[in-house]
């Protein structure tokens, strides 16, 4: 299995629901707690596993605003894993999820430097590295209702712009979306082979104009229309 996310940039409105759902689930999840410093003070900051970046492309008046959710891509060639000196960072054989064993991590930050996607954050409380677990503590949990065995960010996304599944299975929704919508990995040139895919914005379609022919207004006559 090659588990990951397909993220739809055509419909993501940048609402941060997935980011807070992720924070909420995972602070009590396997990788939690996710610590915050100065939660009610100056420059509040904490560990998040998923953040939304909003940026603009092109110049006014043709500029576009793009909302880009960023979490771990569960790369196939993950340098974050190979650089880890303690063996805490690893990629699971069975499903490709990249995880950090919190008991082994010593917070050296090497993996965060190795990750070009900014997906790893050092927890100011535990001093260990945190990142997206692909909600490994939800997706296999048979005591959750079946429909809920999905990442927290996926079930909450109001625009359904996050789809979870197995990219090895050509029949999975993520594989189909990747194909139909020509999903792209982020910065493939770096050679990390990210599993997550981003579905690009759809091209606008030209629309036909006009339809009804009552005639130009000067020629409109009273039609017999029964009330």
């Amino acid at each position, binding site marked *: 299995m090659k588990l990951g996310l397909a993220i739809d940039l055509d419909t993501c409105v940048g609402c941060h629901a997935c980011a807070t759902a992720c924070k909420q689930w995972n602070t009590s999840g396997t*990788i939690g707690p*996710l610590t915050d410093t100065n939660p009610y003070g100056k420059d509040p900051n904490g560990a998040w596993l998923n953040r939304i970046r909003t940026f603009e492309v092109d110049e006014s008046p043709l500029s576009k605003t793009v909302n880009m959710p960023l979490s771990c891509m569960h790369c196939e060639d993950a340098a974050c894993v190979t650089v880890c000196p303690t063996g805490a960072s690893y990629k699971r054989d069975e499903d490709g999820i990249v995880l950090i064993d919190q008991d082994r991590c010593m917070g050296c930050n090497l993996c965060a430097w190795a990750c070009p996607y900014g997906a790893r954050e050092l927890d100011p409380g535990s001093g260990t590295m945190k990142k997206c677990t692909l909600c490994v503590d939800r997706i296999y949990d048979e005591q959750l209702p079946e429909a809920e*065995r999905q990442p927290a960010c996926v*079930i909450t996304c109001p625009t359904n712009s996050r789809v979870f599944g197995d990219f090895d299975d050509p029949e999975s929704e993520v594989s189909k979306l990747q194909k139909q919508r020509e999903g792209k990995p982020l910065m493939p040139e770096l050679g990390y082979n990210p599993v997550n895919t981003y579905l690009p914005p759809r091209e606008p379609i030209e629309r036909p104009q006009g339809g*009804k022919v009552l005639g130009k207004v000067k020629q409109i006559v009273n039609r017999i229309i029964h009330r």
Partner: protein
Amino acid sequence: MTKASALPQFEDHQNQTHKYTTCYMCACRCGIKVTLEDEKIRFIQGNPNHPVNKGVLCAKGNAGIMKQLSPAKLNKPLLRKPDSERGAAEFEEISWDRALDILTERLANIRATDPRRLAYFTGRDQMQALTGLWASQFGTYNWAAHGGFCSVNMAAAGLYTMGHAFWEFGDPDWDQTKYFMLWGVAEDHASNPIKIGLKKLKERGAKFVAVNPVRTGYQSIADEWLALKPGTDGLLALAMIHVLLRDGQIDDEFLIRYTNAPQLVVNTPGQVGDGLLWRDGDDATQVYDQLTESFAPAMSADIAPALMGEFETPDGVPVRTVFSILLDKYMDPQYSPAAVAKECGIDAATIERIALEMAHVAFQESITLGIEWTDWAGRKQTQFIGRPVSMHAMRGVSAHSNGFQTCRAIHLLQILLGTIDCPGGHLAKPPFPKHIVPPIKPAKVNAPNTPLESAPLGFPTCPEDLLIDEQGQPQRIDKAYSWDAPIAAHGLMHMVISNAVAGDPYPIDTLMLFMANMAWNSSMNTSETMDMLRAKDADGNYKIPFIVTCDAFNSETVAFSDLVLPDTTYLERYDTISMLDRPISEPDAACDAVRIPVVDANRDVLSWQEVMVEVAGRLKLPAFTNAQGQPKYENYKDFIINFERAPGIGFLAGWRGENGDQSLLGAPNPKQWEAYEENECFFKYELAPNQRYMRHANLDYLTLAKEAAWVGSTEQIVIELYSETLQKFRLAGQGLYDGPQPTEENQKQRLVRYFDPLPSYYSPLEQQSVSSEEYPFYAITQRPMFMYHSWDSQNAWLRQIMSQNYLYMHRQTALDMGINDFDWAWVESRSGKIRVQVKHMEGVNPNTVWTWNAIAKQGGAWGLSDDTNEAKQGFLMNHLISELLPSDKGGSRMTNSDPITGQAAWYDLQVKITPATAGEEGSWPQFAPLKSPPGYTPAPTKQGYASHTNVNLNRPWSDIFGRRSS
């Protein structure tokens, strides 16, 4: 997923329980499922069965744990220390008994003397049916919620035009629409429902056009973005109307059958009665029937009314159809795309193209649903025809002083295309549509110890309905329903403090506020409002003698209160989301919902609805008192079960009747709360397929609606392109009305100019009175999605997303002025000055600047430290907005509001911008940090919440060795 390998048990499910309730962080009111363990919240998720959110949640709903843990929660009733000053936040904690005694004594005295000396205003609340009932039983008409600065333009324009409206009273048909226009909606109003809807239409390849000076949020995924100049939406809509009329791209069948387009209007300029609908002896409006070639009552069936034409009545009165007037008006070259392009900032070809693209969808891509239904006249119809163009509009339209007419113009555009309550169009949500206009008149008489004869707020249809005295002076403290704001259907909350302090029209005794942050971001002119709350008369007494605030959190307004009543959080309360109130219905289902406590309040707090019911009993308000003169209801739950507005009609429509087996109406059910709890806290009554469309003229629907008391009759609801109500006010301004007329010149002019019976455009009032050369920028604010409606700066997670707002400027414009990214700058309006930090962006109209509102906070408020970014770098645009317009020649100053509805015009603002000099940094003005309330526990500097000890997933040894060796 199947289990791929042995995993530890991460969650102790045996130790977890699930409870359903309703989110409160905004007016969407999504259904939530809360997982609890050891009395802690494990997870808050959307309820997949809930009609509003269908399982999803926004960022606020997902951060509910932090809302619950907010250090800003109030713990106990507070009384201002007698020797302290307002605003100093010097309080003593008192018991609820004492708090309620103080309140009851004060209110009893007011009620026995002059009940209107109680002004009761509520903010972002969701229980206006209860607070309105309470106020009317108390006997004060000085009550309203915050609609006067939020959405009254939208609600009133919709209700006076088509009997429903945007947002809470109607929705685009997300499932079938093929072309969608979004007008002036930042990232809010609504939240999840719009996001769910946008996804659906993008998946279907429907076109999404966004009209907004700023490209963020929803606009970011629009297929086409129109960066129009703020306040000109109405002109843009009228130009599209011009194109449709010019090319005959209109649904004449819809107009003839369902609107007043063919009705005859008296055409006698300069005479009493000009512009009113012509009626026969039986008071029936008339059309010209082409079958009989004679006049006929407009409501008759089986006639063929002429859409156009000028006629003469048997008495020799010249009349013409509404449509003829409309055609005359909008075919004028002033409405051509070329003529409006400059003013709107949108090029003519684009306006033309979009109008014609919509026409194509409406007329060439229509939908036919083969469903049998019965029309208003009892005739069987075999299908519903859909014109799948839909629209939604909110803040950017409503918060301008021309918002009412602009919203009417947008509705007219929809109506000409025939897209009202049809498949793919703009659908009403039960209990809407209502007859036009809803037959509730604002109460006029206040008398000691006497309830009002009707609700405090209603819908005037003529000058006789105004609340003015013989001299024409306003009677309400906010001057709603006066010549200044005749159709102020939601009141003018933004004027209450200013008027009360000025004693204009009279002084009050007590100002009671619920969830309204009037000392901060909910007031225009914040610094002066603070001064007003502190203002004293010559004897050293406060001009507003007593201020009562109810809130769950330590807002800036708490500091200015004499008595503070701590509310519960949303997870600790019983509550109803009632159809008598702001409904959560869907187009195809009537819905309501409840909240039940999912966690215990571990503080000495009471929910405001509990306080309302208790105080009503103590004051012996008739509806809350039994025949023995004792309180009728034990508590809020008991009130909700047993109160009936009319026999069988109560706050909750589900599980009524003694056995709980009746829907919509039925006797009180003692087990109603339990029934809601068992059913995930919401009730959904699905309409049959034949009741889902054309409900203004659908007998199958109207019969049900009458039974459920949603409407008073099954008569057809005729859509009013032409508003005779507005014309009556205009006649009063012209001195041609047979009834009350204003005496002051500026009042007359406002009626003549703005009360056009057909949708019209005028520049926003502030823009008419300040110089665009001196103040060249339009300044607006938006709400970020993760804070919308919630002031969640006390939320530890949400404020990490944003704790400082910037002034966003068009990059090139800013650079031309020498303002670089992150520079500080001064922003000045006709009434104030602030210092802000600038950020550049591309996606903004070049003459518009904007910021995120309600991010800035006073240090110390909301559980925040004194040096937070919200206080030191964040800023409120409110300081620049005056609640009054510049004085006219006579020196009198009118409210800075829509002249029709009194909606606060906080989007009309114009400013000038100058770079700050080196060293000028930080936002200005600054306010001294607030003292913490007694019993406040300082917030931790580091926190990591978890509801249980986390179960780590260890890397298997086999994996370590396996990998390393390979």
